[in-house]
């Protein structure tokens, strides 16, 4: 864990992305190891730390590799588990603003649900609200609370925290 957070504070290389995933169904160290080994197979993953008690994975993304969040999410499903929560620490240089409520990040377009966009090197934590990135019941609940039109619900959303 020290390596992960130590890396984020190191100004000598471009800031890597830190993803935290809450994973449902993790009940033992063997389960956690299965998830970790699936995540480690991804070429853009620099390091992984599993928190068995908190049923969470902290994933450090290599800054020089193209990062696809879908592949990270799918690695959890490939191990036989599901994602409860997908949070990412990002700064302004990592996404492109398309319009007042849309941005492009890691190869996908996201609708901004709420929160302030990060600026400069000051990172912000964001939560991805999209299918398979959280339980379906919770996704519906969040989108209901923002009165999202049913036709737009297939889009990916982002919540800055």
């Amino acid at each position, binding site marked *: 864990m020290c390596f992960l957070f130590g890396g984020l504070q190191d100004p000598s290389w471009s800031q890597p992305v830190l993803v935290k995933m*809450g994973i*449902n*169904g993790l*009940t*033992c*160290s*063997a389960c*956690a*190891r*299965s*998830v970790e*080994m*699936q995540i480690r197979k991804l070429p853009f993953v620099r390091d992984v*730390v*599993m*928190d*068995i*008690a908190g*049923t969470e994975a902290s994933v450090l993304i290599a800054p020089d590799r193209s990062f696809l969040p879908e592949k990270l999410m799918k690695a959890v*499903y*490939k*191990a*036989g*588990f*599901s994602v*409860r929560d997908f949070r990412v620490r990002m700064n302004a240089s990592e996404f492109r603003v398309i319009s007042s409520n849309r941005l492009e990040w890691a190869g996908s377009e996201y609708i901004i649900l709420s929160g302030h966009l990060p600026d400069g090197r000051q990172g912000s934590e964001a939560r991805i609200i999209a299918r398979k990135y959280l*339980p379906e019941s919770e996704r519906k609940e969040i989108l209901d609370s923002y009165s999202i039109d049913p036709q737009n619900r297939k889009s990916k959303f982002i919540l800055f925290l």
Partner: protein
Amino acid sequence: MRWLWIGCFLFLRTALNAQELFPLSEPANTLPAGVLGLRLYSDGNYEIRTLKWMAGARLMYGVTSRLSLYLSGTASNHHSKKLPPDLVSHTHPSGGSPYYFTRQVLRGQVYPMNWNGFHLMAKYRFLNLDGKNSHLRMALIAEGSLVKQAHDEAEPNLLHDNRGWGAGLIVSLLQNRFAASMTLAGILPSDYIEQSPDQITGSPVERRMSYGNGLRYSLSLGYLVQGNRTNDYDEPSTSLYLELIGSSWGDAKFVYDGRSIPTENPAFKAGYYLEIHPGIQRVIGSNLRMELSVGFPLFHRSWVHYYPMYSLGIQRFFY
């Protein structure tokens, strides 16, 4: 027996930290996609004074996150190469035509170790209701075996006694780290056929065993007693298990040279049993599993093994 029930009750009440890596039963969980596993296992019991034992190896592979395949090969000293030559006896009542019948059950026979054959099982996890500290998972299993053993008892077992097919359902529940798994599966054993010389004429005749369909059922519970409390994979863990395993089956028929032979042998009759298998498991490095369990009868008894029934297993995944 009373103390056994009290022990079971206390176990159920206190099983708050559970493991679902059951030594004898398969949970509804599947292997991670693309992961290979190897399991070596053995079981044995003393049939009177003869040690009857089976040894097997199982290769496991996660085809997808929901579909896993399990290929087993086993060897045992449970059977002779052919059905016992004296399986059919005859008399000449009142000096008339011979009356054939199957002989009484024989126990404690010494047989050599034989290769049993292969068993393939596919497990498809079709339901996954996951929470942070809970899940309900259900899986369908389909199994087939290419076992050619001279199995002279009605009780079917696709893993090391019978050729045939099977299918079933596994339901695994984990709630606040209380784990339980139930299995119900049907067994459709195929006939065993051999050509053997007739005891009177010496000419070859067809001897066929037709087995009744069977059911196997289990309820497994696990209790983590040590380990898995830190994020260190090298921390070993120890779990205790209690598995209730049973089976029921129909009558077997013996056909001798095209004639159905009336049976005097209770091993050919329909039956059922339920066993209890307490077990202990040690997991090292979060990946190497070693387990030992001992089975005892609860209701009725198995025809194919005696008690206590010892089971050993060691298992590892290759990521």
